[in-house]
């Protein structure tokens, strides 16, 4: 008995295991609650209210009115369509190009390490910076982009960012330039995890390279490709900084992605905080839905 008591005393001098756990968890948790969880719930709360941060009035509960207004607004549907087209184009291009690049630098060759690192650079830059310097490159007067295109024999003096149909493509192009390396990196790690003996077995089984690609390489990396597509789709759907830096949603509303629309509602003009919150909640629901589709597919791919 005496022993147990005295050892208990010693325990109090030091941190108990429980105390240590709390010490590590709580600072992170408090930070998360302050900057993530509280704002999330607050914006959900605001989405049911008529409220403006500069209005100097308390939120007024309006139920689903904000949602009703937004979902019956044809403009909002148009912005969703723009965002969808943008996400589809850039994710498909990134996946195809990233896969291709990964297949190319899969075999080690002299300088392949340096080339891999160089390819990865765009991914490490800040999207705002990328937006800005691509804006300079796209400039019809002194930008280098049109000059480079003229090398291909196409004499163009277009202002890419000022033409409605081209501006979205311009953003897609920059997004692809920036994020293809990310897809490549994931696919590359998937490719390097395929055991060599599968290809040996396939060579013995007289499978052509094409057959090997479709029946071994592709199914083996499919889970990682799906993860890349999942990440990029979510990112593309809520993409803001790149497009904002390049076009600011223009010309007109040709590149007004849904997140730019939220931003405009929240911080430009009327500061419709409640309505912007409602739109943000809608986007959140859409993204969760898309993610679930992918995760279901991913689990299916992993089962095999």
């Amino acid at each position: 008995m005496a022993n147990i008591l005295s050892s208990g005393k010693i325990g109090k001098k030091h941190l108990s295991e429980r105390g240590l756990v709390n010490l590590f968890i709580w600072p992170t948790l408090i930070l998360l609650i302050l900057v993530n969880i509280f704002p999330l719930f607050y914006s959900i709360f605001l989405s049911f209210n008529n409220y403006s941060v500069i209005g100097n009035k308390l939120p007024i509960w309006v139920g689903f009115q904000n949602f009703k207004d937004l979902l019956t607004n044809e403009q909002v549907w148009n912005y969703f369509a723009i965002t969808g087209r943008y996400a589809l184009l850039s994710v498909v291009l990134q996946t195809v190009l990233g896969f291709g690049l990964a297949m190319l630098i899969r075999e080690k060759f002299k300088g392949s390490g340096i080339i891999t690192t160089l390819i990865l650079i765009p991914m490490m830059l800040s999207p705002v910076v990328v937006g800005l310097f691509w804006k300079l490159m796209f400039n019809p007067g002194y930008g280098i982009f049109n000059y480079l295109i003229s090398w291909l024999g196409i004499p163009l003096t277009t202002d890419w960012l000022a033409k409605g149909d081209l501006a979205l493509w311009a953003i897609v192009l920059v997004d692809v330039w920036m994020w293809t390396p990310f897809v490549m990196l994931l696919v590359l790690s998937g490719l390097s995890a395929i055991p060599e003996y599968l290809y040996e077995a396939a060579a013995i089984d007289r499978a052509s390279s094409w057959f090997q690609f479709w029946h071994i390489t592709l199914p083996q990396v499919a889970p990682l490709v799906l993860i890349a597509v999942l990440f990029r789709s979510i990112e593309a759907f809520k993409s803001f900084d790149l497009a904002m830096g390049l076009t600011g949603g223009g010309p007109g509303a040709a590149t007004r992605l849904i997140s730019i629309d939220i931003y405009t509602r929240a911080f430009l003009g009327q500061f419709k905080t409640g309505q912007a919150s409602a739109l943000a909640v809608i986007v959140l629901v859409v993204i969760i839905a898309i993610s679930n589709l992918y995760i279901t597919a991913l689990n299916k791919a992993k089962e095999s």
Partner: protein
Amino acid sequence: MATIELRDVVKKFGDKYAVKPMNMTIQDGEFVVLLGPSGCGKTTTLRMISGLEAVSSGNIFLNGKDVTWAHPSARDIAYVFQFYALYPHLTVRDNIAFPLQAQAVKRDVIERRVKDVSNLLKIKHLLKRRPGGLSGGDQQRVALARALVRHPAAFLMDEPLGALDADFRETMRAEIKALHVAQKATTVYVTHDQIEAMAMGDRIVVMSNASVQQIGTPAEVYHSPTNLFVANFIGSPGMNLVKCHYQGGKLTLPGGSVYVPAEGWQKTLDHQLGDNQTVVLGFRPEAARVSGEPKISADVFLVEMNGSNVLLDLHLDDDNIVRIRTNRGVNYGLGDTINFDLDPQMVRFFNPSTEAALVME
């Protein structure tokens, strides 16, 4: 069906030989076992035959056709990998069908062939499963099925039973042998297990240190090993090898016993070694016959009961141990001195410096 011929085949990794110049002809329908300790070059040889590994020099012929630089897929051979190498993302059925699908065989033909081969290997109930969930033995059956389904000209098997439990190995060994008897397909089989090699092979190629030590039937390599390595490696336990002194037609063993070899051997020893020389006497444990008269005497050091017989470890002197098999009916105590004679038919001699067997003239 195919013959396989290796002509001066060499494999080098850097400066190091993996396979020293190797010559071998494998007849149509033959079951040849490449046997040797790990790192002796047997798997490298098999991989060169398959085309998975390029030769450093020399030529490989399949049915008389030079295939040295042909891609594995151009050789029409099946290869059973040590760790099965099944396609993990495909079902058992698709694994077996893979070589046929790769050749764009018609769907109904594939269906029939997969059905036949899965009946043959008793894996019909597994067709819808994936390889990851199967036992080692079942995975090996699937790997065999994938090899069998396309009716290849030859089978190459790289320690296919190496990853299985001991008792299951015997079952699979019998199954593979039965398959061979039924299919009559040329088979090259790699193993480090000499019991497996003896049980399965029509011929055994014993390899060590990147070179072929002996090529022969199981009986030949067992009874007439060409050198000390083969004598020691084949059999469990291996051949007893005792350094003796030869003078005047008599051998003096360590411990002082004197053994008089048969007349034919005396002539051979006189001619090939000369008088007053050291020679290695070799005999299998079962060549010894315990007898009353003092021929070779030794002290019992260990008694191993093997069921059908008793294996005795005997001290000739402090440094020299021989092992002999005796009738299980007789009991020996530790430390007893026993006398034995050797079956003259089963006595072999080796040159201690070249390590090669002497051939009786």
